């Protein structure tokens, strides 16, 4: 497919090089962070001169150089994972079950495993650097009764290594829960260096706080379960346990200030290495993209605007403007349809309508879209809509896998029992089930060449028709229904009521409040830019458009905006839609996606105001329907 090629072109030619540059900078920063770590780890208040000389000699030692090489490897792998996992459209699990599914997905398991290993590697480097009692796994010790020298297990070293693995796993886990790989865009544009400088204190603070939390949790974990790895390692490697030393999985062993200090700063070093790589990747990858470029340049650059309003020669067609406005309107009307479909699916009391009703909706919405003539829409807007989000201007195709995983739990599937995975297990073959939609998805993928915003058809492409098979059946909970299904095949209602009474099932499958709203607007950054760019262009056309090319599409644009506004207004009347998310303090995960719907509403109103204040009374001469005119009149009187 053309768009797929274009998309991969963008990834191959632009994103990869940006990622490489960000990794190179992360590697260049490594000696600096390592030096700071060495200084802190050897810190002694009373012997400052010895401290400094120790550190300088250590920094030039061969062990440190080797550690640096290992750390470079870690940074490279981290950068590779960043490139592989980043997404512009966060996957928002709509129930706890979906979250569980995401965490236990094989891909995620591989990720966790790799991060555990990397954590251990970094911690090994850290323990070697700190030296002293931490340096090796085995230490010579004297057997108490016989007095001979044998190799004993150095528990301090083991403690740090296990802490590294623990921190690696918690990083990977929190990455899923907090959408660490979601890349958002700042409201303002800055050069890379000032942006990095501005973000650096935040990153350092985050990594220190995260390290303290992890150290606390790990100490608690080790207190209770520390003997398991200890005995295992000592029996496997045939190391003795030195009984003369205080074991670390005891209260007195853990209350060692120096141990906890070293654990914390090593943890902070570990997190800082990862977070810096993520930060640099985000900074590099989010500069200068097509739609953003449109939104900014339509505001700032007169010459670029004139180019848009110009006619092409020969022929005198406003191809530029048609392409731009068509693309923007397409994006916006797609959002409108998505909202309308969601509203139709969710009845006013928050319950899902019956299946027949929703299929009616489908036909209704498809017919309405034919009337509006925007483009071919999916036959099943419910599932296909989250799959074809053109929002991601660039999107690694692997991101699609996550989506497919969460697809059974899309916001539109409201009750736990209409979830297709379960329905499939219960044995109900529903011809209208969203799976058929996925299979039909090639129909959806027809579209003209893009001016910008390489579309994400590749996503739906990336999830091949056979994708239902790849969906892992949620392990614990779903086994039970499948057993029940064989047994109670004809008594679906009984299954329902039976399951509904199970607290655990309800807990896992109940929808998280707000999640469906967040998921609907997950890719709205693109819509916001489209709105800004379009409104700036239309407003500028009032004085700059010599040939009147904008006039021809003005009614279309206005009605599209008003229809979208109505849909958004109705969406905000749904329960939980207008409740504000709790702000998280200091985490590397970006929670911008949680408030995108508010941002979209504000941007939409501003866009309409921008057009109405510019055109003023002249809007009365534009050919639009009476209801829309009434709504615009409200804007003219500043009553919105």
């Amino acid at each position, binding site marked *: 497919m053309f768009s797929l090629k274009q998309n991969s072109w963008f990834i191959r030619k632009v994103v990869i090089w940006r990622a490489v540059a960000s990794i190179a900078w992360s590697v260049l920063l490594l000696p600096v962070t390592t030096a700071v770590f060495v200084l802190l780890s050897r810190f002694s208040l009373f012997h400052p001169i010895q401290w400094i000389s120790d550190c300088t000699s250590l920094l030039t030692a061969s062990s440190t150089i080797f550690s640096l090489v290992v750390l470079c490897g870690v940074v490279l792998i981290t950068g590779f994972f960043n490139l592989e996992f980043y997404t512009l459209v966060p996957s928002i699990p709509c129930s706890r079950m979906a979250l569980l599914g995401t965490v236990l997905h094989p891909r995620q398991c591989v990720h966790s495993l790799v991060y555990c290993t990397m954590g251990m590697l970094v911690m090994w480097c850290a323990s070697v650097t700190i030296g002293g009692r931490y340096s090796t796994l085995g230490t010579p010790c004297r057997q108490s009764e016989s007095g001979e020298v044998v190799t004993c297990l150095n528990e301090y070293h083991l403690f740090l290594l296990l802490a590294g693995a623990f921190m690696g796993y918690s990083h990977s886990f929190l990455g899923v829960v907090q959408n660490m790989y979601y890349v958002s865009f*700042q*409201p*303002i*544009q*800055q*050069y890379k260096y*000032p942006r990095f*400088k*501005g973000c650096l204190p935040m990153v350092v603070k985050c990594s220190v706080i995260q390290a303290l939390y992890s150290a606390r949790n790990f100490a608690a974990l080790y207190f209770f379960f520390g003997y398991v790895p200890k005995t295992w390692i000592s029996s496997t490697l045939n190391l003795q346990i030195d009984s003369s030393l205080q074991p670390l999985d005891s209260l007195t062993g853990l209350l060692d200030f120096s141990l906890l200090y070293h654990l914390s700063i090593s943890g902070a070093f570990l997190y800082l290495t990862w977070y810096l790589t993520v930060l640099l990747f985000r900074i590099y990858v989010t500069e200068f993209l097509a739609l953003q470029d449109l939104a*900014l340049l339509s*505001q*700032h650059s007169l010459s670029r605007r004139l180019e848009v309003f110009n006619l092409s020669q020969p022929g005198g067609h406003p191809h530029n403007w048609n392409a731009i406005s068509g693309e923007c309107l397409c994006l916006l009307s797609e959002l409108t349809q998505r909202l309308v479909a969601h509203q139709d699916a969710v009845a006013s009391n928050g319950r899902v309508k019956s299946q027949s009703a929703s299929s009616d909706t489908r036909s209704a919405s498809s017919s309405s879209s034919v009337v509006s003539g925007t483009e071919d829409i999916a036959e099943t807007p419910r599932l296909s809509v989250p799959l074809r989000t053109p929002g991601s201007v660039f999107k690694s195709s692997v991101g699609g896998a996550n989506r497919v995983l969460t697809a059974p739990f899309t916001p539109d599937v409201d009750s736990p029992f209409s979830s297709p995975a379960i329905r499939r297990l219960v044995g109900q073959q529903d011809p209208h089930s969203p799976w058929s939609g996925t299979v039909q998805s090639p129909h959806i993928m027809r579209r003209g060449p893009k001016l910008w915003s390489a579309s994400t058809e590749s996503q739906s492409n990336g999830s091949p028709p056979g994708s239902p098979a790849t969906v892992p059946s949620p392990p614990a909970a779903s086994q039970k229904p499948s057993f029940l299904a064989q047994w109670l095949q004809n008594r679906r209602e009984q299954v329902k009521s039976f399951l509904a009474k199970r607290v655990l099932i309800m807990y896992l499958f109940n929808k998280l409040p707000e999640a469906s709203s967040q998921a609907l607007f997950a890719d709205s950054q693109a819509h916001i830019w489209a709105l*800004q760019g379009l409104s*700036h262009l239309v407003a*500028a056309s*009032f*004085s*700059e458009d010599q040939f009147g090319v904008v*006039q021809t599409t003005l009614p279309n644009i206005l009605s599209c905006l008003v229809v979208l506004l109505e849909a958004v207004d109705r969406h905000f009347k749904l329960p939980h839609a207008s409740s*504000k998310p709790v*702000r998280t303090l200091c985490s590397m995960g970006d929670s*911008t996606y949680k*408030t*995108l719907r*508010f*941002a979209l*509403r*504000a*941007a939409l*109103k*501003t866009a309409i*105001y*921008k057009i109405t*204040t*510019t*055109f*003023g*009374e*002249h809007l*009365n*001469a*534009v*050919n639009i329907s*009476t209801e829309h005119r009434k709504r615009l009149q409200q*804007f003219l*009187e*500043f*009553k*919105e």
Partner: protein
Amino acid sequence: MCSLGVFPAPVTAAQTLFERNNELLSALHPGEHSQACDLPSPQFTRDTLKGHSRPESSSRSVFLDQRDTLWMRSAGAWRDAGLYGLLDEITNSAEEVPRFLAVGSACVLALLRWASSFHGSLFPHLTLSSDEMVAEFSQMLDWSDSALRSFAWHPHTDKFAVALLDDSIKIYKSNSSPTPTLKHRCQRSVCALQWKPLCGSALAVACQSCLLIWHVDPASLSTRPSSGCAQVLSHPGHSPITSIAWSPTGSLLVSASPVDTSMMVWDVAAESAVPLQRVGGGGVTYLSWSPDGSRLLAATPSALFRVWETRMWTCERWPCLKGSCQSACWSPDGGCLLLSMQGERVIYALTFSDLTGGPKAASVVADLSETTFPGPDGDLTVGGEVCSLSWDPRGERLAVLLKGDSQADNHPSVIAVFKTRSSPVFELLPCGFVMGEAGAEPRFMQFHPHFQHGALLTVCWSDGRISHVPFYFSSAGLLGGDSPQQALASNTTNPSSNKLYTEQIS
């Protein structure tokens, strides 16, 4: 260069009503009465508004002294006054704590005090209390004493908001619709107000501890919108906020605090902020966004101000000779910036143009040193430091609020109004003084953003009154009239001509 000496003598006996035929007319003239406009001009007196007499933390002294345990007191001190309070509490209760703890906390406290006094000697404004700081850097003259705390016109409609001494905000509209009163728990010591451009409802309020965004539905008849209509935006270390500025497109809001070296660029809907930090200057006191949105002025408490360009958010530093920048205003096309400095009695102009890449030095355009006018009841001295500057949206009138001398009885604060001309060279010409009723001094002023027949200056007076002074004139040619913004403005104000579309019968 224009000086106050060439101004027509002020009429002290009566209030200035309006300007017509190049002459400021006062109530003395027979046959002239306030024909101005049907805009509301409310009056607030200090007696009817009860301010907060003392801060919350000191209310403890009213109650009987009760001995809590050390833990309770320490926790309370930590909550009320942070680390300082905690250390102070421990040091003061030396007989209850181990000796080393008391001595240690006393040492740490001394060290902290020494460090903060050193910091304060670098940046003297840091030693002020939060209220004093707001009073120092507010655009309102004599902020702490005034019944009116701040004022803002809506950029598109005949609607304004007034912040009052009792920390409430009232919204007035031109017709006799109800006037909503906004109150919020966090709304303390309001220093600045600004309506969001390209929006009918959002009002940003700079408070002592946070930034409030009120969403006041214009269609609603409610007189007390609930505090649920307000968004609270706060950032640790970013208070008190003394200045806010919306971008002209309404998409961003910038807030500044004199104690925070970074200014915050807020995406209000998403409630997220990007800090833009520059250490020099020790804080940011005043912000002003150019009307075309391309530049942003940020004044610091030191003798330094910055001009940010808003595409890539880089800034250029402008060190000043004497004091800090007190007030500034942009010409309507964003090409010219007028500034006033603390301790200097002149107005500086900076001219920006995209071709030359920015100005190299500021030029003095007006001299505002004291001038004495003889009057029927004694001499009247006029002139002094500039408290605030305001330029009308057409770029034809410039109002300057001059601080008086509170000790001398014939040296009041006045508003001097200049005519501005941009061609062949930028020039200020005298227009006149705007006087209030006897005994009233101006505190704050702002031009109406879209007055049809010229310019309309709204003045807040020391007696708590708000009055409107129209300036009737026909536009002689706009300052930088070739910009699209200006062309737009002239188009929309004159709907009968220059139709873009043919009328359609629907």
